[in-house]
């Protein structure tokens, strides 16, 4: 990353989880103070539970969803604590990576 680009480093958390668990993940994200997130319903792919087609037409809750949130490091720990506890008992995938954003204020409003 070139500092001259003027970007700010943040943490990106992606979680693939059952559609019915999107509500609790959304609550976790909101409660730790994230300012927004993205949900992609009915994602497909291969995991240890087999291949998921991601094409349920009239059932949002039993497919898989990808939830992505970007937040400053200070808010990340609490979210990861909650997600880890959740995934002790539910199927899912948790990915954490560095990311850079051009408008940090969008992701770090005061609470």
């Amino acid at each position, binding site marked *: 990353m070139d500092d001259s680009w003027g970007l700010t480093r943040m943490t990106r958390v992606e979680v693939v989880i059952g559609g019915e668990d999107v509500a609790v993940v959304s609550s976790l994200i909101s409660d730790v103070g994230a300012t927004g997130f993205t949900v992609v319903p009915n994602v497909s792919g291969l995991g240890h539970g087999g291949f998921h087609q991601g094409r349920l037409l009239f059932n949002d809750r039993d497919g898989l969803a990808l939830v992505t949130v970007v937040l400053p490091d200070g808010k990340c720990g609490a979210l990861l604590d909650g997600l880890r506890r959740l995934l002790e008992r539910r199927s899912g995938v948790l990915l954490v990576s560095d990311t850079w954003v051009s408008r940090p204020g969008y992701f770090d409003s005061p*609470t």
Partner: protein
Amino acid sequence: MTKASASGEQAILLADVDEAARIVAPLWPLSSFIAVNPLWGLREHSFDRAVELSARFLGVHGYPSPDLYADAVRTGRLVPEDLWHALDEHGSEKTAGRPAADGEVGASGTVRARGARAGGTTTLARYDASRGTRLAESTDAEVARWCAAYAAGVLAHPDGGGLYAAWRWVVARDPATRRLAGVRGRAVLASLPDRAEDAILASLERLGVAEVDRVDELSGQLARMPGWAGHALWRSRWAAAEEPGPALHLLDYLAVRLGYDAVQREAAVDGHESATHRRRPRNELRSSRASRALRVSSGDADVDPRDATLPDDLRRALTALAPGRAAAIWLAAYEAHFRDDLLGALGGAVAGRPLNRPLAQAVFCIDTRSEGLRRHLEARGRYETFGFAGFFGLPMRFRPWGAAEPIDLCPALVRPVADVGEYPAQVDDGSAARRLEDVQGLAGMTDAFAAAKKGVSAAFVLAEAGGFAAGPLGVAKTVAPSAYARLRKRLGTFLAPRPATVVEPAASDRAMTDDEQALFAETMLATMGLTRGFAPLVLLCGHGSTTENNPYASALDCGACGGNRGASSARAAAAILNRPQIRLLLESRGIAIPDDTIFLAGEHETVTDVVKLLDLDVVPHGRRAAVAQLQEDLDVAGASVARERARRLPGARQAASAGEARSADWAEIRPEWGLARNAAFVVGPRALTAGVDLDSRCFLHSYDPDGDADGLALETILTAPMVVAHWINAQYYFSTVDPDVLGAGDKTAHNIVGGIGVLRGCGGDLQVGLPLQSVFDADRAYHEPMRLLVAVVAPRATLEAVVRRNAVLRDLFDGRWVHVVVRDDEAGGWAVRRPGGTFVPWEPAGRMSAEPERTMSEEIGARG
């Protein structure tokens, strides 16, 4: 109100609460009553294991009573061969269905591992059990009181916030709390932290609950009042964020509950003895729910086969079963008898559409009440009927003309994807606006009258001001309900006439494009196998139920439309399918609809079985005779099915013509039976069931396996309509086998609270499930409690491929929440699916092979 960001500890608590909430089911508000499997959160366990867990935590009797089986044996509904066969198939199993494996991903690990600890499901309940006190019941009563006040809008914090904020704001001055917990305890509650999460953590610490026991404690807390907890679960995990009204959330609910538990226990330990939680004799404990849970889990629910007249050897075999197994065997036998009867009746062909073009095709909802109407309409002549979920595949947020709030017309499993509205049909010349004012004015007056009736002081003013008119009207409504209903309708039309309207996609940011409309239409037609051979008229028929003074009215409406009437969905779908642009797009996708085909909308009124055709202005003059003929045949078919259904209703109003009176009578407690006696979900071509009287017991979903090579249509049917049918079936099942815990009790004792639910009497828990009058005829069960039989016409390999890629189907099929039979003529007719995906050829009880015919692994592997 704003609050600080959650810490890690708080986030972990949130995850624990979500896990604990599996023990209760979401409870929808009355306005959109959704039937749900009350044990849905436990579906990753087998049915029998989930019943066992619900016995421990909720005190549920999860199997039918011995009396029901004794009656069944007496009447031949259950014969010894059924029981022998069930013993052969299930008797040797240690636990039915899928065993709960340690470390299984996705299972409710903590609940499964420990279950309820001896003496009760919460710390305070165990304290009660050891000391002979009733502190936990006091918490229940207090929390129920606060919840009711909050739901009714009586309790609210001036700065907003949820139940916890509102309660904490007033509890410092609450005399009832002082009586319960003393001045000190009340002060502790008043000084609880701002955040509900922190309050929960603080109270758990005061109660001495270790983190490892936290999920059990929280489950126990929620299980004590599954109604209020279920409502909080719905609000927290299922409701739309913009849902109006007071928002009772799980965290707020638990914060209040645990607060009372903690301070009451401390007060008791410190010697504070109040009038409301004084000690009581030990034997009195047996009447409480907590002790009931213990009795149920210790085996009281087991069926005693000696209650029925059986051969000695069979009785000995049943008596020798381990505790808990007999109940499962009796249920399996009872279900198998119905399965054998049904499959025996479906012996005909499974393929073939009419050779000649039908006069009309009619698509009805899969609702069991459509079956009779389809049968009688087909008997009238050249009609072809189909079954499809009553939202017609269009999940929409619909704004009726003149309504302030939109309604979601779609199953609970899916979010609306499109905005659709109802608009005046004519170009606005000012008359529509005037009529809108009239309609809204009349609606406002009606709402004001209803609000005044419920107001504390306004009710007296209303009685003084309007009693002179309301009294005679009340008498008229009582002695001549039908005439009163007609008069009221005419008066409403006179005061506020409605213009002719159309239903069409709204111009919003969720407006449907032409491509999206064509995709919706293609999906609907392809899923039910109607992609060719279109008739000149195609009726899309929704359904609804008109009843008076019935808190459970929406339970009789269309479940696929979110507990609403189905006419608007039918109108929207028909309007889209009549658009020339959509026809062109469909043709490009391989579905050619003849130019002379007109899609009509209609609605089946299920109390009277009258079908009303809608939006007939789309019919050209030259085609009106055909439409009139269709209406006439629908009238005759409706009258026939009304006679059938009326015969099943108890009481004096059995005549088919009494339907209108039942619909209008505000004292009628059973206007219709709804979906009682539902038992099977049939997926296949109509040729399979045509001409067979299925007694309104089957959900019928049309499906053409020949046009579904990749199984996409079957996957759609099994993962959505079948799941909804299972929810309905499970709700009827549990409301019948345990009306005390999972049923809503006697309608005549119901009081509506906050418009969200009903109480039995004046307080306590919100009622879950169905009222007694929906499933019982006096003291006898009218509904036959059985798990849903799913009968599918499809290649087994296609079915298994669909099951393999959908966890919800594996849970339901392998866990024996439903039974599955499949007809694959290439593989030899009907076969019974066993957990894991093996099949045995179906034969009536006593002759079916106990060994799997073959596994499906090779066929699955071949299909990828």
